[in-house]
Each structure stands twice: as structure tokens, then as C-alpha cells.
């Protein structure tokens, strides 16, 4: 993450908090206090143009909230998101935000909810083009929609159909066509294949990779599936309870994870190619973001935690091509870890 790269998106000390307080009357009657959900706390990362940055973590870790903040549908509580050099929270009017919105699109998880069931596919795909005034209604627009459908592997005639006439995978293709319609530079992909079967997932992931190659797209990929992240990401960040615990080059992190949480997460993922292997388990459950633990948020579940971890929040520390926030790494208490597979060593170098 040196300054020499072409940074498209940079997130600086981003914090998002939600008010989850009981109603005023209830607070007055029962003496209940205000409660705040700490969804995202001081997250920093940068995304290089033309690359894929993946955010991984378990549900409730804040990765989807970051996606929504960047997409402009969730206002930040603190920090800033700057896209193509402009702070996105600074827009005063809808009009001022339009050039930014044209360059940023989003693909959602649930292909059954992300397309308006009452709209024909052609109208769905044309919406970004018309909204940004890139073209007027007419034959040229119809041709553009047909071309977009062709790009994502659907037939031009599908423009006249309704979403319910398509399977989940085909709907996700329609979502991608809509995201491409306004020729954006950046696409936020929030769990784009989580609702799909694996064989369909492979089709969508291959399509996404092809489009990135052909159009120089930049992706922010939100996923809980480490295998998908391994397949797609150039750089990645591992989130736990609203904070980034480890980020950097994806090849390095997957081959030589440093943070104890990343290590346990990688050990926990069931691998169909290595049945019934014995390995360490991640014990316990994620604490509530209403009352995150003091110090390092992971310390109650961490096998390496000591008194300092419970007291003091670890700061990010650079180790080769990654940043790790862990006292055990800093103090050199981290046990060495046998390489999971010789393949990962063989391929870790090419992405660095």
C-alpha cells in the first residue's frame, strides 16, 4: 500500500455506529440507558484501481455496513471515505453526488430481492443509463441493453421478460448487467454468490473475473467464504467485531496468516478436498457489538491472550505485505504454523 499505486478508494478511520436505544418513554420509565451498536470502528484501507479488495468475517463483523457506507446508502458516524479523490460524505445535494454514483455500482447477495419484480429486465438494466442521462429512450438504448445482456451471457430477447422467469444465477447476471450499464469504475459486491449453488457460483465468479480483465474494473468483495476470497482477491482484510484485525496481500494472508483469528478461521473452513482433517477449532461465539470487549476484541476467544490483550487495544503492525493488529505478533509470542498445503506456498508469490 505504498503511495505510488493508483488508489481508487481510500477509507480513513471509518466508524459507523447505530443507535439501538429503547424509546424515550421506556428509558424514562425503566431507567434503561442509551445503547449503541459499534458496527464499524476506525477501519482504514485502500483499494488499488483494477484490483479486488475482499473483506471477510463472520456475520455481524461490520463488512456489509462498510459496503453500504461506501455505496452511499449508510452515512458514516466518523472518518471518511474518499473515492477518486473526493470525500463522499461531503456531497450536499443529490446532483453533486451523481458523477460519483455513476462510477460506483453495487451487486447484492439475494438475487430474488435485488431486482424489482414488477419491472421488465430491459427497464431494470436501462435504469442507471437513464438516471445519469447517458442516453435517451429509443433504439440505441435497446441496442445497448441487448449488448449488456450479451456481455453477461444472456439473450437479447430476455429484455422483455420479468425477473421471476429466471433462475437465481441468471438473475445475478441481470444484476451484473445493471451494474455495468453506466460504465462504472468500481463495483461493490456484497456476497454476490452466497445465495447460489456452487456450479452457478463458478459461472458468476468466472464472469466477474472476465469483466474485470476486459474493463479494468475495481471490486470491493464482501464475503464470508474464504475459498471465494482466495479465488478472487488481490488484497484482503479480515474483520472481527467492527475492526480490521489483519489486512494486506491476499496470497500472503491465506498462506501465512498471522492474526490468531485469521488462523482459526482458516482452520475452521470445511474443505471438500481434505475430508475429516483434525485441526483447531474456534471456540465460543462472537460477542455482542452492543458491548465489545475491552482491549483486543478477540481476546475472550483467543488462545494466546494475556492480561495486556484484555487491557490495551493492539495497533496495526506491518509484517511483510500485511498489517496485523495483535500483541502476540508484536511480542513474538506467535507459535509457528505448519504450512497447510504446499500449493499455497507455490502460488503465494505471484500475487504479491
Amino acid at each position, binding site marked *: 500500500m505504498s503511495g505510488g499505486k493508483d488508489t481508487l478508494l481510500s477509507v480513513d478511520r471509518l466508524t459507523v455506529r447505530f443507535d439501538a436505544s429503547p424509546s424515550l418513554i421506556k428509558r424514562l420509565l425503566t431507567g434503561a440507558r442509551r445503547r449503541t451498536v459499534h458496527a464499524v470502528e476506525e477501519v482504514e484501507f485502500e483499494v488499488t484501481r483494477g484490483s479486488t479488495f475482499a473483506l471477510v468475517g463472520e456475520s455481524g463483523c461490520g463488512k456489509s455496513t462498510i459496503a453500504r457506507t461506501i455505496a452511499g446508502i449508510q452515512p458514516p458516524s466518523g472518518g471518511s471515505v474518499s473515492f477518486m479523490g473526493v470525500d463522499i460524505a461531503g456531497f450536499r445535494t443529490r446532483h453533486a453526488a*451523481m458523477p460519483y454514483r455513476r462510477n460506483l455500482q453495487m451487486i*447484492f*447477495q439475494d438475487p430474488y*430481492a435485488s431486482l*424489482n419484480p414488477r419491472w421488465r429486465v430491459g427497464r431494470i438494466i436501462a435504469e*442507471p443509463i437513464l438516471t445519469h442521462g447517458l442516453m435517451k429512450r429509443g433504439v440505441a438504448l435497446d441496442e445497448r441493453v441487448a449488448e449488456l445482456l450479451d456481455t453477461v451471457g444472456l439473450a437479447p430477447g430476455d429484455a422483455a421478460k420479468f425477473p421471476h422467469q429466471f433462475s437465481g444465477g441468471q438473475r445475478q447476471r441481470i444484476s451484473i448487467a*445493471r451494474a455495468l450499464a453506466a460504465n462504472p469504475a468500481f463495483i461493490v459486491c456484497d456476497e454476490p454468490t452466497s445465495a447460489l449453488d456452487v456450479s452457478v457460483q463458478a459461472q458468476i465468479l468466472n464472469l466477474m473475473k472476465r469483466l474485470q480483465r476486459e474493463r479494468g474494473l475495481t471490486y470491493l468483495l464482501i464475503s464470508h467464504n474464504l475459498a471465494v476470497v482466495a479465488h478472487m482477491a488481490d488484497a484482503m482484510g479480515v474483520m472481527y467485531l467492527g475492526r480490521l484485525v489483519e489486512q494486506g496481500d491476499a496470497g500472503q494472508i491465506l498462506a501465512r496468516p498471522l492474526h490468531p483469528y485469521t488462523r482459526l478461521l482458516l482452520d475452521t473452513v470445511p474443505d471438500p478436498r481434505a475430508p475429516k482433517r483434525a485441526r483447531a477449532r474456534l471456540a465460543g461465539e462472537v460477542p455482542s457489538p452492543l458491548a465489545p470487549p475491552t482491549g483486543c476484541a478477540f481476546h475472550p476467544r483467543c488462545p494466546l491472550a494475556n492480561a495486556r490483550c484484555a487491557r490495551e487495544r493492539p495497533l496495526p503492525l506491518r509484517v511483510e505485505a500485511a498489517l496485523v493488529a495483535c500483541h502476540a505478533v508484536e511480542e513474538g509470542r506467535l507459535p509457528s504454523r505448519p504450512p497447510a498445503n504446499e500449493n499455497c506456498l507455490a502460488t503465494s508469490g505471484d500475487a504479491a
Partner: protein
Amino acid sequence: MSLAALRHSLGNWWRGDLAYRFRRSPVAILAALVGLALLVAAMGAPVLAPYDAFDPAAANAADARLPPCVEGMFGDVYLLGTDPQGRDMLSAMLYGLRTSLVVGLASVAAAALAGVLLGLIAGYFGGVLDAFIMRAADVQLSFPAILIALLIDGVARTAMPAALHAELAVPILIAAIAASFWVQYARTVRGLVLVERGRDYVLAAKVTGVSTPRILISHILPNVLGPVLVIATINLALAILTESTLSFLGVGLPSTQPSLGSLVRIGNEFVFSGDWWISALPGLLLVLLSLSVNIFGDWLRDALNPKLAS
């Protein structure tokens, strides 16, 4: 839309699930046919009615209160008898049906329009706007519908001269009934909007930068109209009955503009003297109308409910 495209979309509808369920439900078909026949009869009243019910000259006082199928003084045959003014009951009922239907349809349309709009705003924007609209709805609900209609009608009667009031009787009645029905639409639509506004397709439109009015009108509105249609159908029967009740109580339409309710009222005095047809026949028609509308509405509700579909 070209004719071919229209035929295409009609064909699609006919092959669709809703039309399939309709074809398989004899009760729904019967209710729709009866409703349609009544609608045609009401709209065709000026052509179909043997006498003009609005023309005092057509009424013959000598033929007052004749039972059905009895020949009048001047050789006129009244199929369904006559009323106390000597008006032909069949003609009066056809015109009455027309008035009842017009008032019912218009008040449902007005209530739905206001309710849907307020529900959209309350559900989408939330906050103070939502609180204000929904509290107004709560207050509205704490009065019976009839009372509100009576109130509006009473105020209108005292506020304007009698001639003007007679002229504006129909719009006032429509407003009065609409005012008591909008709450149901607003509440239903608000609930649906609360769900829809968080759906991904709405978020996708927001990410793209689509303006809020456009999101409301072209994205959310079409997705909440199904339940509105069901409520509107069932409310139509209610609105017609409310109009009849008001007219029966004498606060609805003036007697120069017969509605089914006012016909029942006119006959009410003569029921015990054996002249049953003056009240009973319009009453029967009212039952037939509201029953067919209600049965159709019930079927529509079930047919549009995906959980009951099989």
C-alpha cells in the same frame, strides 16, 4: 401500446396464475358475472329503464304503491310495482343502483388515493411525518365511520344553502365516506413500504442515484398495489352499504336522486301496511350487489396470497 402488444399482454394474463385460479373457481366467476351484470344495468339505466326516475312527470300519483305486475290506471304495466309517488320501482332501482355504484366507486377511489399517498410518505420517510400521519389515523379510527360521515354531512348542510347542498350532495357524500375509509389503506401501505424500502432493489436504485419521488412512484408503489386492490374491492361493498345507510337515515342524497338506501327508507313506512316490495326489492338488490363484490374480493385476497396458492 399497439393492438398486437395489447393482445400479447392480455394473452399472457390469461395464461397466468391468477387467470388460471379464476377459471377454476365457479364462485368467483359467478360473483364476477353478477357484479358485471349489475354494473352494466346501472350504467345503462337511462336506456334500460322503462321510465325516467328523475322526471316527476313520469310519475303518476294515481298509480302509487302498486304491487309488482299489476296494471296501472292508464294501462302502464309496472314489472316491480310502484313507490308511494307512483314511480316505477324497476326504473327507480336501476337509477338507484347507478347512484349507489357511482358513490361507492368514487369514494373508494378517493380513499385509496389519499390512503396510499399518506401510507407511502409515512412508511418511506418515517420520523415526525410518520408519527403525525399515523396519529391522525388513530384518531380517525376512534370514531365509527358512520359518525364521521354524519358529521361531514351535517357541517355541509348547515354551512351551505339548501339548493347548493342538493347540487353538491353526491361529492359531499363521496368525501364523507372516503374520509372514514382512508386509514385502512394508509396503514396497510405503510406496513408494506417499511418492508419494501429495505429490499435490495430499492437500495440498488438509491446506489444508482435515482431520486426519491421516482423510487416511491415507480419502484415501491407497483409492489404494494396488490393488497390495495383487495382492500378496495372489499371496501367497495362497505362503501355502498355506508351510502345506503346514510341515505336510509335521511342524511345522504335528496329524494330527487334515488339511491338504493333512500328507496328502502321510502318503503320503510309502508312495510307494515303490506306494501313490502317498496323496501324489500331495493334491499334485495343491495344484498346481491354487496354479496357479489364481497365474494369476489375474498377470492381475490386468497388468489393473491402466495401462501394459500397451490
